[in-house]
């Protein structure tokens, strides 16, 4: 049984680095994480280094296909699509980081208080969680972003306040289980207060959930940022954001300018996948049942 699960996990986990001999699974996992982090760092670095002049309008080189000079081609205003994509991606990463950090903190606070502050608080919080889970993410997101007048602020707040629900549930369940653990009860009988045990005994056990939840929320945040910008409720059109690029590209797809949507879309996919890989592999490293594999 354990052999079977080990084999499947192995093939799912890091088959990419299988071809390098002499690495154990832990080293391969670390290598996966490192290379994904490198990709993200490269995107951010590139967006800082690339010249803003390249995304200014150049009518003499508009509608060019991909070439060595313009890797991703240029659009109908002659802007270099590679530069726009890279700058858009780094903006997306920035928004995703803030939004997922905020929603993880919300999840932690609500999950902890639901499980430690008594029945009424617990009922209210689970009710709110059910309410938010019951309606589609995107609807709530559009509503919040629209009310706040769009822009980066609206998107960040919107994403942060719609993505905490499932993690809250996980943390609440975990705290409920820990609260009845013998070592917590013993601590209470040694005169420690409820809050003392919550911080010193329960919180350290939530670090993996916290960390992995953060990394797994990130791709969600980016995709939702891109989708509400695509729908026109997000960032303003002059910002080099992936959602803006994709929604504009839609209008020009029928004229045969496939590179406008293809490369930015592909890059978004790669970035999201990179974060997904980091989250998955971190979980394997931190989870006590897999950590010693």
């Amino acid at each position: 049984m354990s052999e079977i699960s080990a084999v499947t996990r192995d093939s799912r986990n890091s088959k990419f680095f299988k071809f390098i001999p002499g690495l154990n699974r832990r080293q391969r996992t670390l290598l996966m994480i490192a290379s994904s982090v490198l990709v993200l760092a490269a995107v951010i670095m590139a967006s800082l280094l690339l010249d803003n002049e390249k995304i200014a309008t150049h009518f003499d080189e508009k509608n060019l296909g991909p070439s060595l000079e313009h890797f991703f081609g240029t659009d109908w205003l002659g802007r270099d699509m590679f530069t726009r994509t890279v700058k858009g991606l780094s903006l997306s990463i920035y928004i995703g980081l803030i939004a997922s950090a905020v929603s993880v903190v919300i999840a932690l606070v609500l999950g902890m208080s639901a499980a430690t502050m008594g029945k009424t608080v617990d009922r209210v919080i689970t009710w709110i969680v059910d309410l938010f889970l019951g309606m589609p993410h995107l609807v709530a997101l559009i509503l919040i972003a629209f009310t706040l007048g769009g822009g980066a602020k609206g998107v960040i707040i919107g994403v942060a306040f719609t993505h905490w629900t499932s993690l809250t549930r996980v943390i609440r369940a975990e705290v409920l289980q820990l609260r009845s653990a013998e070592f917590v009860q013993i601590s209470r009988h040694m005169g420690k207060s409820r809050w003392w045990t919550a911080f010193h005994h329960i919180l350290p056990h939530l670090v993996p959930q916290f960390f992995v939840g953060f990394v797994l929320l990130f791709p969600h945040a980016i995709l939702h940022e891109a989708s509400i910008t695509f729908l026109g409720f997000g960032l303003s059109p002059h910002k080099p954001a992936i959602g803006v690029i994709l929604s504009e590209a839609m209008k020009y797809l029928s004229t045969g300018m496939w590179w406008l949507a293809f490369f930015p879309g592909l890059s978004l996919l790669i970035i999201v996948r990179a974060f997904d890989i980091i989250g998955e592999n971190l979980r394997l490293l931190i989870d006590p049942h897999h950590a010693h594999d």
Partner: protein
Amino acid sequence: MQLRAENISFRYGKGDWILKDFNIELNQGEILGLTGPSGCGKSTLAKILAGYERPLGGSVELDSRSFPSKGFNPVQLVFQHPEKAVNPRWQMHRILRESGCQDDSLYRSLGIEESWMKRWPNELSGGELQRFCVARALTRQTRFLIADEMTTMLDAITQAQIWHVVLEYAKQNNMGVLVVSHENRLIERLCDRVVCLRDNAAGRT
């Protein structure tokens, strides 16, 4: 000082009554044994006496007063499984210090080595962990110790060592000890008085 349970009744949920109108008292400096077959409610009684469970009927009193709900509990319970009684993410020295400061001679007599202090719970054996749990429960404020199958999973030599220290400590500090066990030999060796749970629990089928 006296720990007294009067007419206590208890059951889990809507199940059968585990304890019905049960009386027990533990005096200061007394070593009391509690025996009975498996599943007769020994551990439940231990938890009630230490305040981990509230009895559905009757009362547990310490010196004719009801239990303090806050602060250090003068009735300390040592569980059967030390692995569950320590936080796996705490180092041993932190686990020991949680109950307040104690003297090093007690650690030494329990066989706790200095080098174990920096280790994590999963790097120690069950017997080694149980020594920490016993040391943690033996503080100056502890008036009664309830040992729920405290040494059941240990070998005879370790059992003897731990009990020797506990009894010595109880004598010095005039502490009452309730020894919960189904090992009659151990109870006979240690205790001044023995209560058999099956005889006392009324109304059971």
